[in-house]
């Protein structure tokens, strides 16, 4: 949590020597609090004070990286309970669990899904993020063989799942130095698991029994052993209990500064129901309420796509609406005679308008203008969707080379500017479209006839 200048000042030598470049310790403390100076700027800081300050200024929920290289994922690091207060920062990740009791065809199918479950939406690359590799048999040789197979087949980071430290040790070697998530330390094995996590620089999941006080005690011991990157499994396996624990964990970390609970979480909708549709619904619950690593039984496209889009929605920064690239979007193979519409580049506006145009089955050209991600009305009010901006956009975007006619359909809410725009947009007629996107299909059908 952010420290105040006074908190920092208390730890400084208070000699006002000026070596930090500011005349007094208090002034220096204020600069640090404001983010304009670094602690290291004071050469006289005691070691104790330095570690106390860096610990106190650590974020309330640690961001934990799983995996290495380009495909590594970062989870946790969250600062708020409700997304509107700021934003949710590091999107949760999903993983299909592959176990060593599965037949080869099932394993190959899940690996294929893990690699192919990718969608591009609003210029974002949507994918699961991780792959779970689980020892069901307890046979170390089978487990390592499976890990080697997964490692050869996909670059997605792994979650190595087994309660036996000896098997995890063999598994970590088989995985190479790829920082997989170890699942999991428990009260019985935590010493060995903590040692392995440290030796292999791998994050460590800690599995509780449903009792959060006991989980705090267990995490305390693991932290004392030196492990910093921890992921919490509350240990519950039904959504009602899991939701309660996840809410308590997030609150304890943010509001009570319980540092043993200041970590990302791992949840198992795949173990909370046999029904894959319900599994997806519970996964959705954890996307909104505080799940960081969400384990699934597979990544069937028809279920994975809606979950990825839900994650994209929940993790969108409320202060920075998603934008689409300005330009011409052809919908349904338009020709030189097809209608031309203009709208804003607020992604939601774009989605709704393009969806309705598509639904009308009338091929059209949709010109999306850069309104800095603002909606039609807001950007008009802010002077970003006005004739002075529309004229150079339409003249420069290349639509005049695409169509023979010169008729531009503007959003119905901008009807008042149609006269002015027509005067300034030389050679074009301006037509006022519907106010509501839902009315676009009948409008386009009558336009085309």
């Amino acid at each position, binding site marked *: 949590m952010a420290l105040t200048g006074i908190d920092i000042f208390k730890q400084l030598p208070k000699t006002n020597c000026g070596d930090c470049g500011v005349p007094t310790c208090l002034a220096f403390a204020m600069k640090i609090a404001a983010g304009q100076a670094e602690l290291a700027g004071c050469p006289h800081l005691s070691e104790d004070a330095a570690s106390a300050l860096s610990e106190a200024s650590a974020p309330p929920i640690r961001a934990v990286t799983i995996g290495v290289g380009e495909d590594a994922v970062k989870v946790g690091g969250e600062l708020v309970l409700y997304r509107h207060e700021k934003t949710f920062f590091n999107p949760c990740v999903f993983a299909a669990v592959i176990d060593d009791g599965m037949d080869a065809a099932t394993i190959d199918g899940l690996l294929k899904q893990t690699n192919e479950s990718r969608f591009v939406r609003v210029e974002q690359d949507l994918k699961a993020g991780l792959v779970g590799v689980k020892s069901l048999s307890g046979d170390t040789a089978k487990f390592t063989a499976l890990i080697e197979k997964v490692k050869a087949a996909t670059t997605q980071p792994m979650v190595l799942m087994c309660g036996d430290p000896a098997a995890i040790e063999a598994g970590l070697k088989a995985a190479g130095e790829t920082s997989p998530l170890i699942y999991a330390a428990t009260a019985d094995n935590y010493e060995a698991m903590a040692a392995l996590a440290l030796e292999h620089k791998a994050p460590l999941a800690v599995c509780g029994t449903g009792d959060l006080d006991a989980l705090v005690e267990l995490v305390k011991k693991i932290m004392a052993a030196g492990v910093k990157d921890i992921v919490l499994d509350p240990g519950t396996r039904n959504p009602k209990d899991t939701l309660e624990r996840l809410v308590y964990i997030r609150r304890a970390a943010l509001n009570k500064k319980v540092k043993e609970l200041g970590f990302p979480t791992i949840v198992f909708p795949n173990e909370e129901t046999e029904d894959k549709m319900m599994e997806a619904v519970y996964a959705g619950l954890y996307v909104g309420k505080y799940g960081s690593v969400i384990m699934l039984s597979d990544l069937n496209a028809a279920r994975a796509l809606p979950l990825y889009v839900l994650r994209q929605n929940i993790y969108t920064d409320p202060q920075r609406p998603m934008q689409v690239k300005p330009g011409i979007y052809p919908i349904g193979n338009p020709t030189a005679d097809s209608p031309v519409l203009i709208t804003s580049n607020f992604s*939601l506006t774009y989605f*709704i308008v393009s969806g309705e145009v598509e639904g009308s089955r009338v091929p059209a050209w949709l010109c999306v203008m850069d309104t800095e991600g603002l909606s039609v009305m807001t950007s008009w009010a802010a002077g970003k969707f006005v004739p002075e901006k529309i004229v150079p956009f339409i003249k420069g975007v290349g639509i005049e080379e695409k169509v023979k006619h010169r008729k531009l359909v503007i959003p119905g809410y901008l009807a008042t500017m149609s006269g002015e725009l027509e005067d300034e947009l030389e050679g074009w007629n301006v037509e006022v479209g519907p106010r509501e996107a839902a009315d676009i299909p*009948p409008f386009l059908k009558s336009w085309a006839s």
Partner: protein
Amino acid sequence: MEVKETYNGKIREATIGLGDTAVTVGGETSLPLYMFEGTAPNKPVIALEVYDTKPEDWPEAAVAPYADVLDDPVKWALKCQDEYKADMICLNLASTNPSTGDRTGADIAPIVKAVSDAIKIPLIVYGTANADKDAEVMPKAAEACQGKRALIGPVEEENYKTVAAAALGFDHLAAPHSPIDVNIAKQLNILITQLGLAPERVIIDPTTGALGYGLEYCYSVMERLRLAAMTQNDSMTQMPMINQIGREVWKAKEVKTPEADEPAWGDAETRGVLWEALTATALIMAGSNILVMRHPKAVELTRQFVAALTG
């Protein structure tokens, strides 16, 4: 772990319908689904959609459960009630939209009456959110189902004097509709309660965005309304909420596109059903009390979710 919250606010209870089959919503004393620190005497309920004319643009997966009744609103409503066990029926007067059917209040009044007389469960009647047109249509609709204590919506800032007054005059409830905006939602509640409608007769329609189409805006506005209701005891935010989920979800591109056109997106029915169920359950998490839905399978998933989380 001492992290339980205590709340000083409570959601009002509102009852739609009369007699044995009346449905009460609201009454929660905590944030949605936080059963560990409050009570929720009434679970979220599901209204199934019925349209006054045969819909032309529904994808196959949505048509299939209703294929035999789509051109008969009464049969359709009865199927929703008897076969799909809807808690309520939401009759959408889509044909009154000026840019499509443009039917008048007099045209649709007999349909409203026929549906309301045929069903036992409570009725919701919704216009097209065209403020001028609804001002003409909704009083006729409210009159046609007089005596049923229905929920009449949407009430807009521009027509509340007519539409909310009709709800009041014919002894119904009203659903004020605000454009994803906490302050306008509160303001509209103030205006319509000043007209004389009791706060217990008001259900907030915060505007629904489907998954991928503005869900996050809707989710956060609802979450903010619920926080204001529970932690600030803000009276004008303490009404139950309604979301029009079916009609928003089933026009999304990812829902309408057949698998043949986008093989990478998988089975269209599974995708559509889950799209609707995830929209519904996310909005329950944000505070929805009445979910107006379309696909029976999505309804089933949503019911199981509610049972698992509140049971």
